[in-house]
């Protein structure tokens, strides 16, 4: 069975052709790979391919199908698209909230200031919320003229990474 795997903006077609213990034979976008792959520590894979020794580290993201993957050179977001994800994604078509309408904090921190409230009309560039982490304050600003739909946090709250703080429309 072939899977679709998204790596950043690239979408790859991946098929597992054969396997025996750590030896895995697969096809990625038509390239055949015969590799020896072992998880040596949790989340750390050692891959031997054609004599080359690769080390790849990964962390599971929000779901079991999403990963942050570190190679020597670069960090990627990787997502496995299986039948279930395709079904969900087809069902959600047209229903999805635009990402720019959701204000989330990229890192954990503390809400220092919320100079707007639900119902406010805001203009592009206007500060919506100020989050402090490690002695540095970050201001989140509106990208376009919008209306504040809902404020989900209050001043003094601590937030987790990727926590939704505000909805706009």
């Amino acid at each position, binding site marked *: 069975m072939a899977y679709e795997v998204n790596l950043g903006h690239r979408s790859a077609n991946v098929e597992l052709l054969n396997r025996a213990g750590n030896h895995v034979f697969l096809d990625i976008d038509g390239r055949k790979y015969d590799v020896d*792959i072992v998880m040596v520590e949790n989340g750390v*894979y050692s891959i031997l391919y054609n004599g080359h020794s690769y080390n790849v580290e990964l962390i599971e993201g929000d779901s079991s199908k999403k990963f942050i993957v570190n190679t020597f050179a670069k960090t990627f977001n990787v997502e496995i698209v299986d039948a279930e994800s395709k079904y969900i994604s087809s069902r959600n078509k047209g229903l999805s909230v635009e990402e720019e309408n959701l204000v989330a904090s990229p890192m954990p921190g503390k809400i220092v200031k919320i100079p707007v409230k639900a119902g406010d009309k805001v203009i592009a560039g206007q500060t919506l919320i100020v989050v402090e982490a490690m002695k540095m304050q970050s201001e989140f600003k509106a990208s376009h003229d919008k209306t504040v739909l809902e404020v989900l946090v209050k001043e003094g709250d601590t937030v987790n990474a990727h926590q939704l703080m505000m909805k706009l429309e």
Partner: protein
Amino acid sequence: MIKKVLVANRGEIAVRVMRSCREMGIRSVAVYSDADRNSMHVRYADEAYRIGPPPSRESYLNVEAIIGAAKSSGADAIHPGYGFLSENASFSARCRQEGIIFVGPDPYAITTMGDKIIARQTMIKAGVPVVPGTTEKLKDEQEALEIARQIGVPVMIKASAGGGGKGMRLVKHLDEVGSAFRRARSEAINAFGDDSVYIEKYIESPHHIEFQILADNHGNVIHLFERECSIQRRHQKVIEETPSPLMNPELRREMGETAVQAAKAVNYKGAGTIEFIVSDNLEYYFLEMNTRLQVEHPVTERVVGVDLVKEQISIANGNPLPFRQEDLRQTGHSIQCRIYAEDPDNNFMPNPGIIKHITEPHGLGLRCDGYVYEGYEIPIYYDPMITKLISWGETRVEAIARMKRALYEYKITGVKTNIKFLEKIMDTRDFIEGKYNTHFIENNEAMLHASRPCGIECEDMAIMAAFIDYIAKMESIQPPRYTDELGSNWKDFGRKRNVLRL
């Protein structure tokens, strides 16, 4: 004789101080905020006392709580580390009042060096060169022009109440002084409600070079040579090294003597650092004195072969310095990289979080001063620095090669760090040639933010690892048995996955 030291700090510096205490047979006492119960310094210490809630001003800046912990534990001395209360004169005075040794200078030295204007006046009196200019408000255009002529262009006209570049005017020709003075003054009044401006020589390619000094209670003051600290982002040092690539033996001797003079001028005791600003043509000016241990002290320790924390404690014990100036030598070259939990591609935004996996570098010529461990959650309340990586080499070339090797070995997942950014600095021509000043990061912006190439095979490896991980999980989906769960532990769980059962 000090027998028990309370370390009024957290993070890597708390652990570092406790390590030297342990080697000296001195017991160490940790203090911690509620955000730090699991922090390494609490685990490392012999004793540990809670001092308050997470925000610094309620814990690590909470003088009453810290003095209380010192009394409960019966500590003879308090080591303040850097930051927090380390340059707080009233804390130093309070310790003395309570009969506790403060490992650092007396309140007089802290106060004098803590006030920019008083420090400047004291240095001028002691014959230490300061950046030419005024500190007082300029009366009028005429005075501005006179002084500009005296100190020579380029000069900078600055608002006394200023900051953030506002009310600042660079003057390259004398005939610009008048208009620059007027504009700076009008900007100043608008921005700060105060039209005071002053004038200062402008250093075009400033180098930040500092000298480590040690002074005992018997009048002996020595320096332990320089550290080059010009590589900074947002006015925070990122990389430090010694010897400075800019230095020559004559200048080193001269600046070292000046640093000793500066320390003597405030009757300094303990370890301290004189910071200088140095121009491309090697004119140097006193900038400020840090009356405490510096973050970058390890490069000096490595090249001079001295444990500065032990010397601090020895001085606090009233011992004379164990060496004279002529006993000290610089051997080889040392570089320090500060590893921050931050996102270099997003304006260096801090990135606290949970350390999922960490592999720290080891081997010849490396030192790694950190405090995080697997499963540790870096709190949102404090500094984003998680580790200092220090390399040593027979030559600067070797120290750079070793640092690159160390950064390659350093693996951390769970939080974003500046490790790849530091690797790129090591590959930057200006750095390799040792030709850089405080503008280094802005001058090399493009190169430092370029992402490294990951070819199609490299990409496929990333896809493969994620795919195989996913497949392995899918195939093992079955409610774990009761007994499995009981018997399993973290590491066993890992072990079971060592061999993929696809």
